[in-house]
């Protein structure tokens, strides 16, 4: 016989479903949802509900991630958590075959990786022409400009009025920058 849920458990289950609807489906121009929106829909206990959801997504190789407005914050306050954006990302990684089916050519992936790594090495801000120069060493010039525009459009890179590139919201949500930098540097050591 199926176990009957208590009223509290029913309420919690419903809130978990609400959290899934908010996080999985795009509601605005950009994916993800702000902390205050989660608080509004899920109540004061929203952070616990997100943690429970994260645990439930683990067997599906998914996780809930958070991107703060300011990337340098170590211990965010409640207000900063409410302004942060929450996304569902893949817990694991993809292989090259899957990346191709998603629509990424190997040149495009490599270009993005070099752009991100170079921006990190320059403490987060680099003039666009410097990135173009680096990419043009291995990729055709016309493709470099197209790719950088694509990375900016998709939200991986941001570009300000004076032509300075920086890491934008999607790079901060999707890319484990520490791991990327470690892999690049360790490749250099192995080659040596």
């Amino acid at each position, binding site marked *: 016989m199926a176990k009957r849920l208590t009223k509290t458990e029913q309420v919690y289950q419903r809130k978990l479903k609400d959290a899934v609807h908010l996080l999985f489906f795009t509601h605005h121009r950009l994916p993800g949802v702000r902390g205050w929106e989660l608080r509004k829909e899920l109540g004061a206990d929203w952070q616990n509900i997100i943690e429970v959801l994260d645990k439930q997504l683990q067997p599906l190789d998914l996780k809930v991630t958070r991107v703060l407005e300011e990337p340098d914050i170590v211990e965010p306050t409640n207000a900063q958590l409410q302004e942060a954006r929450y996304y569902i990302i893949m817990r694991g990684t993809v292989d090259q075959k899957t990346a191709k089916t998603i629509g990424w050519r190997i040149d495009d992936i490599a270009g993005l*990786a070099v752009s991100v790594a170079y921006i990190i090495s320059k403490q987060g801000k680099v003039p666009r022409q410097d990135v173009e120069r*680096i990419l043009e060493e291995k990729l055709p010039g016309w493709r470099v400009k197209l790719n950088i525009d694509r990375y900016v459009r998709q939200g991986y890179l941001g570009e300000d009025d004076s032509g300075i590139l920086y890491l934008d919201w999607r790079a901060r949500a999707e890319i484990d920058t520490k791991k990327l930098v470690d892999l690049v540097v360790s*490749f250099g050591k192995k080659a040596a």
Partner: protein
Amino acid sequence: MSELESVINLCLMVQSGKIEPFDIDFDYVMSVIKKNYPNLKNVQEFCLDAQALKELSNVLERQNQWIEHQSTTLYKDPFMLSQSLMGMDIGAIANAFLRSWHPLMEMEQISTKTLAGSLSYWGGLIPFDERWQDCLVEERETEYASMDEAIELGFIPGEGFTEVVENFWKELGERVGPGGIIEYWEWIGEETYEATVYRAYLTVFMVGYGYANAHWDRLMEENKIIHNVEPRPDPGQQKVSIPTMVDYEEWKQWQND
């Protein structure tokens, strides 16, 4: 360009990432600012001095951030990182990226309710053929119009403009008496703004043509219209028009008063 302006530009290049923060010799830049300080004469030069100090303090902040960044686990020697990137083939770079990439979930779904709503909208939407029908230009044959038809269509006023102004003058005379005075807004004010503007327009010509006089006391903020007993006292004199403003806000205020 002055030395202070050069200092400011140099510091701005650090902010934009074009040069490294530690490439600036802080002591030398401070000596330039100190050297220029006794020669400052006017406000602009003092402002330049203040801006140079402000930008230099921003450079110090960037230097501090650079040191903090170095002490974190994310820091790797930029030269080593660049060299590693150059030494890797495209496949190896892509592989490194894919091992650190966790793509985002973004799903979009149309619900039954949204579909039903859009079908209802579609049903109510007028076809293009019908929508554009009113805008189609039809060729018509030209014809002559009589005076009555032109008056009926509103192209020509029923009475001459002079008659309109004279009737307006008569109305003023009936309201304030011969030679009487009335406050400007009391005279032109109407229920609607459009009617008020029309009365102000006629008043301008009534005064310009000599049927009435206007008295503007800017100090006391009193504007008055004075009825002239003699209509058109100087028929030979050239008519003038006096520009006057009828502000919407002022009309609203008059209505509330």
